[in-house]
């Protein structure tokens, strides 16, 4: 027997039928019918946020840490526009979220009604797809399609704009949730072209100076174990993009660290000197390639991506493969295994040994463990790198780590060695300050027993710190590590390096709150650290049994003069990097 449900009830029932556990949202006039339907059920838990942007980041953090779609519910007008930054964040990093926004009733659309915004129009450039519900009867089909589109192919955010009249509690419909979707115009690739795969294998086996350059596609595509198996079989060096960290275990000898603007010396040098680059689920972002015209001059490029539009967008691919990373890497591994069984000398072992010798040379010359990086701060204060290393030790490398945007993000990416996918959660594409705390909350909801650390800076933290209240309401035991340099550190770094040290609007030294008192006022636990000596003891407490159920805020006052190195030199090739500050100035090495 089919049930008779109102539009609002159908919407919530459809979410239940999709297996949704949490909806992150904020009520308002246009969604009150939907909120009433939420009130009358128990299967979905609604999380009341303090700002709609945070709701989208929570859903995003939930999605990134689980692979399941995150769901957001906001009202029309300002509720919807507040969500846009979070939608754009999810779009740039290809994460599956479904955002349901209220809308004024169909009959008022276009009349500049109270809290009316053309949400489909406003969000159009930053969604994978969007829907405006014209009649309640469409709701089950639209929800089904929205989840399918959000999660399949290259994932991304989908908006469903729901006019108030379509959720009228007094009008009932036969509810049936569709089992399948039929979209004639949307058929994401499910496997790679076998001819291209054979070509790729031949190129891999012939390589003398190969690099596996892998990105967020390996994480989102659940291909980390396939990547690790293939990389281990080949013995090739692996570098990850900012989005790809955790795709290959970060503590392995074979791992070169992150590449790109603040990538390791060895990773960037290896990329520049490679004769073969196998890009997997990475998109040759400008923060990776530096000047595309000077990118890896000798390299043959194999590019595997689920999205054909990513291939040959910036750097021309010699061997393009369209398909999901997971199945294509597995297929490549099968073919490689067979070839190596046929011919034990299939790989050029001598060339590879030479290649590794060069890479180890670079690692010794300027690896992340370079002595320089362990010095005390210039004025005897704490270094941000030391704080991240302490977090890594205290959490046994097993935490989910979210970050905001800036220097702290780069330090976290460089020094926390992720050994599994979906552990490192940051806004890489859009670079959204304010992402870290709400994303950590989404992760904590998804993993109630997991250790979740948010490595942030005071600038980013202040962009969404109202969510400390939400953390209090839902008792989320997040560990917030605030790398406090009393400045917008990355902006300041650029001003130091490129604008003659003129700190135009990047500091606010005398206008910061007492973060310890601030967090404590929300009922949370807080520490302040100024000295290296205190660091490990405090971190042991923070990540130990003592504060298992507490939100702990660590206000770490770090050396405000510290810069992130290496740093790519603008307009250069990947081997053009500033490596360290010498005598108070940034040493630009162009002799490499």
């Amino acid at each position: 027997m089919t049930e008779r449900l109102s539009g609002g009830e159908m919407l919530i029932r459809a979410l239940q039928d999709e297996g949704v556990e949490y909806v992150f949202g904020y009520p308002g006039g246009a969604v009150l019918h939907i909120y009433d339907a939420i009130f009358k059920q128990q299967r979905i838990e609604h999380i009341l946020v303090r700002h709609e942007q945070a709701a989208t980041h929570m859903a995003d953090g939930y999605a990134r840490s689980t692979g399941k779609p995150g769901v957001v519910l906001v009202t029309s007008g300002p509720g919807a526009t507040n969500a846009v930054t979070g939608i754009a964040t999810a779009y740039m990093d290809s994460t599956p979220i479904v955002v349901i926004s209220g809308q004024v009733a169909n009959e008022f659309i276009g009349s500049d009604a109270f809290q009316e915004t053309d949400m489909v129009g406003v969000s159009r450039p930053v969604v994978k797809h969007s829907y405006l519900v014209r009649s309640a009867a469409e709701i089950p089909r639209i929800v089904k399609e929205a989840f399918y589109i959000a999660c399949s192919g290259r994932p991304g955010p989908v908006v469903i704009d729901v006019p108030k009249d379509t959720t009228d509690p007094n009008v009932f419909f036969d509810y049936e949730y569709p089992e399948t979707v039929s979209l004639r115009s949307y058929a994401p690739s499910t496997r790679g072209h076998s001819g291209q795969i054979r070509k790729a294998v031949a190129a891999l086996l012939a390589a003398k100076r190969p690099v596996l350059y892998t990105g967020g596609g390996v994480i989102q595509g659940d291909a980390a174990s396939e990547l690790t198996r293939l990389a281990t079989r080949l013995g090739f060096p692996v570098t990850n993009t900012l989005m790809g960290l955790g795709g290959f275990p970060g503590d392995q000898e074979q791992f070169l660290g992150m590449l790109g603007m603040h990538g390791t010396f060895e990773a960037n040098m290896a990329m520049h000197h490679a004769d073969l680059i196998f890009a997997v689920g990475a998109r040759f972002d400008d923060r990776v390639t530096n000047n595309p015209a000077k990118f890896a001059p000798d390299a043959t490029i194999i590019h595997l991506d689920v999205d054909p539009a990513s291939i040959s967008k910036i750097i021309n691919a010699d061997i393009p493969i369209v398909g999901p990373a997971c199945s294509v890497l597995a297929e490549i591994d099968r073919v490689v295994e067979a070839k190596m069984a046929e011919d034990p000398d299939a790989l050029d072992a001598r060339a590879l040994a030479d290649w590794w010798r060069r890479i180890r040379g670079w690692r010794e010359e300027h690896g992340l463990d370079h002595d320089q990086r362990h010095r005390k701060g210039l004025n005897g204060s704490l270094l941000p790198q030391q704080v991240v290393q302490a977090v890594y030790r205290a959490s046994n490398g097993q935490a989910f780590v979210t970050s905001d945007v800036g220097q702290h993000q780069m330090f976290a990416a460089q020094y926390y060695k992720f050994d599994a996918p979906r552990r490192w959660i940051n806004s890489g594409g859009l670079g959204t300050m304010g992402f870290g705390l709400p994303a950590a909350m989404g992760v904590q909801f998804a993993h109630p027993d997991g250790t979740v650390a948010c490595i942030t800076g005071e600038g980013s933290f202040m962009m969404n710190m109202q969510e400390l209240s939400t953390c209090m309401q839902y008792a989320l035991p997040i560990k917030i590590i605030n790398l406090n340099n009393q400045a917008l550190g990355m902006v300041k770094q650029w001003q130091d390096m490129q604008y003659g040290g003129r700190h135009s609007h990047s500091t606010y030294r005398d206008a910061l709150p007492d973060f310890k008192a601030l967090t404590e006022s929300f009922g949370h636990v807080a520490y302040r650290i100024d000295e290296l000596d205190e660091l490990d003891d405090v971190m042991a407490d923070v990540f130990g049994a003592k504060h298992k159920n507490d939100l702990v805020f660590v206000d770490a006052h770090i050396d405000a003069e510290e810069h992130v190195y290496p740093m790519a030199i603008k307009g250069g090739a990947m081997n053009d990097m500033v490596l360290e500050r010498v005598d108070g100035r940034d040493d630009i090495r162009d002799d490499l």
Partner: protein
Amino acid sequence: MRRLLAILLENEAGALSRVIGLFAQRNYNIETLNVAPTEDETLSRVTLSTTGDESRIEQITKHLNRLIEVVKVVDLTDGDHLERELMLIKVRAVGDMREEVKRCCDIFRGQVIDVTSDAYTIQLTGTSEKLDAFIRALDETAVLEVVRSGVSGIGRADKILSL
């Protein structure tokens, strides 16, 4: 390089705005745009002329295909094709000019579809170059108003764009 793309699109509210939005968002150029439902009323067909080198056109095609409501995209300029544009043009025609404009219209195989005591409205179909040539052939000061449909295109012979 000028390119003519034929796009089959779900005939739904908002679908066209995604196509146009894509061009604006990715800094692609639209020279002409022509759209109407096809014989299958669930589909619209767009003919769009744009410019760019090969890699740019490849990117445009890929990004168009990424739109959920885009069913098919074909670059008509890849092969033999026909293209036509419709122009309605209002021309001042008084005294001796009336005969001259009519003669010019005949040469270009146009049709006068509306007449007043001092103007003709002429309908002309052809390639965009032919329409340009007709405008040039007229006395510049005589042209009162021009409306052009944008190019419609179709592949030659048995090349068919359908589902």
